[in-house]
């Protein structure tokens, strides 16, 4: 990593037509798709992405090439295959996919075409968060351009390949970002996650083999085809190769999206003038959530970690979606957790017992803390409820609250004790929905 990192995901220069097809092609865009479709077999594309070690950027970090390889051959499961682009980005603290789609829609489209070709799909669905109407319009425009230029449609690059793209707008549920809930929603059903197995690679959309990838995951693919495995692996770490967009938010001088190699120090992201540029108003950090709202929080004394899948796991937290939420000393960790609990309570699909009941119970207890009516025994109770949720549900949404509960309560118990007396002024929640 001696050579300076050169961004390849978020490269927009601020000009108004940066994302237009003409500008994208000038930068060498769509060459990778053309090459993959005309010069490579699907197996070669999968082999390439496997060798590059590209891991999913949607949260779980599953190796993309390996996942593509799970799609069964047509003689085992006949019928269509689908590639689904997960653009539902709703995790609090994460706003990278939105930036990619807004500034450079062809990049994700091209990655999706390559992935679809690799798995033998002729249909791509892009499930985009309902609250992103502008991005949906931009994407639709780009798709229109791509059809016109022969990057989509029948007889792709004069081969027998056909490729169609449909954009589907979500209706405002966080759970529809979970891949199987997304599929059910796409099929017209209520956004309920499905029990796995069967995994979508075998039986996904309309019961057919389906691969779901995050926007940023797919945005990595064209560069891998263009520049190769060695280039990709020259960035990041052995187990987390490549670059990553980190969404920095909270008490920072320069919040925003920053592209950096995986493995970069969290302190660098927070303090380096090229990234977060240090705490806003110079108040020291109290805590940082390193990977989107669902992951365990880090205390100020735990911030010396590297931002890659394995290092954060060793530090007891997760890289998740790469949304870094920095909080300074003015922040009340009880209010943070109450806010998170309200979010997950609101967003639980309600299908399975521990999540449906556990998120609400947790939120109601924290509401009492918020009203300074906490009890000492509530701390153990909160941890117990988290244990009763963790790993016992259909999808990981329950864990996404249980993990923050555990880390907040165990790392900041005294803050919770301050809410047992009545000394904290009453705080009026900003939104209109109420617990209970």
């Amino acid at each position, binding site marked *: 990593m001696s050579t300076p990192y050169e961004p390849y995901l978020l490269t927009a220069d601020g000009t108004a037509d940066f994302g237009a097809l003409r500008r994208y092609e000038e930068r060498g865009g769509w060459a990778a798709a053309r090459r993959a479709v005309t010069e490579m077999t699907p197996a070669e594309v999968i082999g390439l992405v496997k060798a590059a070690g590209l891991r999913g950027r949607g949260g779980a970090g599953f190796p993309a090439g390996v996942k593509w390889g799970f799609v069964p051959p047509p003689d085992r499961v006949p019928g269509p295959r689908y590639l689904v682009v997960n653009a539902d980005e709703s995790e609090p603290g994460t706003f990278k996919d939105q930036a990619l789609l807004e500034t450079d829609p062809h990049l994700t489209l091209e990655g999706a075409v390559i992935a679809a070709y690799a798995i033998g799909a002729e249909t791509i669905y892009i499930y985009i968060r309902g609250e992103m109407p502008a991005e949906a319009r931009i994407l639709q425009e780009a798709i229109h351009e791509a059809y016109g230029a022969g990057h989509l449609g029948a007889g792709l690059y004069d081969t027998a390949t056909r490729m169609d793209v449909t954009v589907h707008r979500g209706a405002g549920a966080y*759970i529809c970002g979970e891949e199987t809930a997304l599929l059910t929603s796409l099929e017209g059903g209520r956004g309920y996650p499905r029990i796995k197995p069967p995994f979508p690679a075998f039986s996904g959309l309309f019961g057919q083999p389906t691969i779901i990838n995050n926007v940023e995951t797919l945005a990595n693919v064209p560069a891998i085809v263009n520049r190769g495995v060695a280039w990709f692996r020259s960035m990041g770490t052995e187990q987390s190769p490549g670059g990553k967009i980190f969404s920095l938010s909270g008490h920072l001088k320069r919040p925003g999206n920053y592209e950096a190699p995986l493995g970069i120090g969290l302190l660098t992201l927070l303090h380096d003038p090229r990234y977060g540029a240090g705490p806003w108003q110079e108040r020291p950090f109290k805590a940082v959530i390193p990977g989107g709202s669902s992951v365990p929080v880090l205390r100020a004394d735990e911030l010396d970690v590297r931002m890659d899948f394995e290092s954060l796991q060793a530090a007891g937290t997760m890289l998740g979606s790469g949304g870094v939420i920095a909080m300074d000393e003015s922040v009340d960790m009880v209010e943070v957790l109450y806010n998170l609990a309200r979010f997950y309570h*609101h967003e639980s*699909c*309600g299908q399975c*017992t521990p999540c449906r009941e556990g998120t609400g*119970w947790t939120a109601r207890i924290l509401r009492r803390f918020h009203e300074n009516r906490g009890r000492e025994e509530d701390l153990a109770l909160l941890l117990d409820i988290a244990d*009763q949720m963790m790993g016992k549900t259909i999808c990981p949404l329950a864990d996404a609250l249980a993990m923050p509960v555990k880390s907040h309560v165990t790392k900041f118990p005294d803050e919770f004790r301050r809410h047992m007396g009545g000394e904290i002024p009453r705080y009026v929640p900003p939104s209109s929905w109420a617990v209970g």
Partner: protein
Amino acid sequence: MPRLTINGQEVEVPQGTLLIEACARVTEKPPHFCYHPGLRPDGNCRMCMVKIEGMRGVSISCTLPAAEGMVVSTEHPEVLAARRGVMEFLLIHHPLDCPVCDKAGECILQDHSYDHGRGASRYIEPKIVRPKRDLGPRIALWPERCIRCSRCTRFLDEVTGTSELAFFERGDRTDLDIFPGRPIDNPLSLNIVDICPVGALISKDFLFRARVWNLRKKASVCAACSRGCNVVLESYEGKLTRLVPRPNPHVNHHWMCDHGRLSHAYVHDPRRPRQIVKREDARSFNVALPEALEAIRAGLEAVRAAHGAAAVGGLVTAWLTNEELHLAGRLLRDVLGARRLVALAAPPGEAYVAKSGFRIAADRNPNRAGLEAVLGLVPDDEAVRALAADIETGAIRALLVLGGMPAPAYPEELVAVASRLELLVVQDLVPSALLDRAHIVLPAAAAPEKHGSFINDDGRVQRLEPLLVPPVPGGDLGILGALLRALGDRPPGGGGAVGVFADLAARNERFQGLTFQELGDLGRPRRGAEDRPRPPHAAGE
């Protein structure tokens, strides 16, 4: 055939067996709410968890097929803790109104709460309150009791295909409801009340009528159509209070229809004939059985002496059991040598085939197949009219009408000539114009009062067990036996259902090889009929 180890015991199960069912082979079935063997597994309640060696945490057993070499524990400490957690979660908003809940006593939430719950709740926050509401003509919802197991929605999606119920809202606000103006009103709707693991879905018919632990129960079959769904008859204080389906893979799987449950009002109808009546010179007397028998004997003798044996006719219905039909045949054909023996059928109802293949037969005569197998009789309006004509001409002077049916269906022609008869004996379940003209009225026993067997429209011989006491002790079988004795004969096999059935099996090749005991709870095909479980999800059966 995967072999696996459950609680230290090795077991081999058929390929595709769900782990929860595999567990049930060696130990108690893991506690569960959302799993139901008649529905596709959904895995939402998270109660059926087990520990599988080599897998992280606990796993639910209702969606996983048992696999070769699995090592499973149903009592691992992690499993016990997880169950306790689920129980606690399910109860935090539950109203715990068992004292006024219809389901109390047969509620899985209540049972599992005793076995797997904590004694006291740690929940001190406000509970979610939801008013109860109407879901249709037969069903109401107590939404606070609902544990969102989706058994009801899956039933309406998979079995009837009518999908009236759905979940609205999200998280713990999730609310079960119908769509505006679309009540639940399908022919199988009350099954969702049975399969609701709690008292959320309530049958208006059964509401507040009994505490279930006070119910007397008997395994029998429904007599409302010729399918013969297997049921449990339930009574409270001597009154038939509820019918619930009894699983039989050959007939009804886990279900029965609303018509079958609700068409038994005639049993306790105050107008139902319950006394033996003798009519003389336009006056009627309640009499004891021996006096009625003597009157019948004397009447028959007079007719036979004056007009010959052929002046006697008989009419039977498909509400008689095989055993009763056997005795009726012996009485009318062998002893009396009747000129005509005809069968009368109830008019057909509406046939129905559910999405899952569950059938309601248009034929509402429960033992039509028995009529044919035992007596070789097919109900035939022509034959009944011919009987009426014989009465008109005086060729027939004495008529025995046996069996009855819940709604009278005697043709006008027959009623019109009834007064010409010198002896008219009518046995029935309901009042009718013919009954009014009878010299001797014999109360018939209703199906829930009968011991015997019916044959359903697949040729399956199935047992009826008496839950209620018939108006005449001994029921129709007793009356027929006594009649035979009065006429100098003797009912075969001692006159009880078991003995008569044995005689039938010895004489009638369609019953060859069967014994009453061996019919068991699930029945047996009569000779020549197919014995094949019907797949639950094969539509258009």
